[in-house]
């Protein structure tokens, strides 16, 4: 393993699992206690986004907008232009999905200090089906100037992300999952916007992941050891501004890259890493994620399996890309 301090029980079968959105709720409360300018908005999704944690403590700074995401994004811009630090809380299919132009013009072009939290992202939303599985949000937001894009890997990192984004001046987008997912990091794991962390050292292949699938990537790396493949795992939580140095250094060291994400590989983390490699250190690459299809209803685990985001598929991709080096 690397020198980074992760959850010591990471590979226990009984590893604790907490939804990343819980970290959002905790982060909001921590921020609210520190800064009276922090305000939280929701579009009729207070409890499921965990914005209700803030609502319970600071009702006078909580704004219920109703099912009106375009208006919500605009209100947030107006609040930010008046010195507030608004957090827009909804599902990632709705923010940015329903209000991309408001995000573009009212927020990003205006450099309004708005924070956008997209909950229930990825295919692991499960039974609700394709309409509610946000698999395009990273791509559609990272193309906008002036905005930071973060994908925390677990509840602890989600809390750190929320606080860091609150302290960062400028627009930011971050996404969470619905399901309970393993706690990967610890309070001592370093976190900084724009800095990818090597969670596991390796010499043969670099697995670059974001979000809860960092767990599957670490499990895959551990199992690859038995096949004689030494895999590095990078937690690339900041999609934008992307950490070119850490990504290029990984590629330079191992000469082969696999990206892993719960998102379309076109335009998502896979796209972003491909851009970095093509410009800085071209290397063979395999991308794990959605391959230009919509999802469907099913249990989260079944969906990750069917759409190729399982530990098994990550291992296969690693073996394939290692062969391509030769």
């Amino acid at each position: 393993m690397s020198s980074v301090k992760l959850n010591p029980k990471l590979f226990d079968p009984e590893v604790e699992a907490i939804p990343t959105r819980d970290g959002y709720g905790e982060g909001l409360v921590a921020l609210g206690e520190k800064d009276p300018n922090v305000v939280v908005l929701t579009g009729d999704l207070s409890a499921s986004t965990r914005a209700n944690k803030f609502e319970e403590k600071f009702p006078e700074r909580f704004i219920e907008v109703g099912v009106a995401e375009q208006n919500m994004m605009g209100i947030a811009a107006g609040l930010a232009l008046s010195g507030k630090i608004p957090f827009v809380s909804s599902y990632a299919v709705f923010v940015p999905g329903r209000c991309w132009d408001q995000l573009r013009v009212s927020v990003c072009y205006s450099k309004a200090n708005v924070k956008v939290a997209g909950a229930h992202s990825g295919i692991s939303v499960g039974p609700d089906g394709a309409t509610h599985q946000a698999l395009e949000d990273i791509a559609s937001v990272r193309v906008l100037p002036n905005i930071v894009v973060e994908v925390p890997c677990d509840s602890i990192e989600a809390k750190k992300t929320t606080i860091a984004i609150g302290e960062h001046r400028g627009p930011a987008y971050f996404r969470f999952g619905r399901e309970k997912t393993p706690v990967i990091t610890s309070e001592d794991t370093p976190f900084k916007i724009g800095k990818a962390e090597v969670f596991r050292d390796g010499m043969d292949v670099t697995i670059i992941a974001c979000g809860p699938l960092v767990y599957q990537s670490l499990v895959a790396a551990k199992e690859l050891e038995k096949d004689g493949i030494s895999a590095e795992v990078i937690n690339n939580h900041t999609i934008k501004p992307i950490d070119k140095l850490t990504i290029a250094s990984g590629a330079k060291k191992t000469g082969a890259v696999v990206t892993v994400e719960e998102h379309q590989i076109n335009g998502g983390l896979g796209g972003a890493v491909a851009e970095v490699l093509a410009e800085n250190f071209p290397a063979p690459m395999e991308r794990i994620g959605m391959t230009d299809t919509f999802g469907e209803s099913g249990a989260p685990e079944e969906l990750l399996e069917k759409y190729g985001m399982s530990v098994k598929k990550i291992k296969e991709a690693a073996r394939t890309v290692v062969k391509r080096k030769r």
Partner: protein
Amino acid sequence: MDKRHSPQHREHTHIGEIEKIANDIRQDIIKMLVEAGSGHSAGPLGMADVFTALYFAVLNHNPQKPNWDERDRVVLSNGHIAPVLYTTLAHSGYFSREEALGTLRKLNSRLQGHPHVGTTPGVENSSGPLGQGLSQAVGMALAARMDGKKHWIYCLMSDGEHDEGQIWEAVMFAGKNRLFQITGIIDRNNIQIDGMTEDVMPLEPLREKYESFNWHVIDVDGHNIQEIIDACSEAKAIYEKPVMIIAHTIPGKGVGWMEFDYRWHGNPPGTLEVPGDPAKKDQAKSALDELRSLRGKITGEHE
């Protein structure tokens, strides 16, 4: 600073003076559009009286301190009428008339084709894509309410942009939350790019729509400076609802051959041959001549 003591207010108490400024602003709009070679004509000319009344009689503002915390905010939602905003800001002293007349829409200019907050002194929001202004005004009003601040937020909108659903989301929210610090002003000029609003997508009964969303509505003649000022004063006395002023205006007002002709919505003088209108090369001069002769007919109270 109370608005009755603001320098703008003291200097221009007399309606005739404000009318003259509005006429000067119209002339500058023509000049800046001709210099830019593109941009919207009808809307800016039609809103010249509303803008002049606001900046020279209604607003509590300080052009020397554009970021002063207690200032009244003007959120322009239909950003394509930026020429009237820029010209009025220049006449108020936010930047020079030379900058307004010479740099609109040019490379490296502070006067973008559509307004950009942070670039231009006095501009409070970015706009252009329609329907986004009122939501931002709502956010500003919520912030003011949370902080116990007394300033006012004026949101200027077009009639055509009421086709956008976002506006009605914001109207519903402001009505529910009784955001009385918002005074909206609709440029009810009845035209949009493809024709008359009532043909493209009927808005009437507009007054009743707003009233049913818990707004107080005032209809005014958008070219009567006194009526505009009075409506804004009335709005300040309404504490249980947001107020929408429907300003009935004539697009292209002041240039006879442009008035009420939707073909002049998106084109500056000198770019469009319209049967019956002056030839392209003569349009700028004709417009300015007409405005200058109109100016001669305005009499100040002390003349």
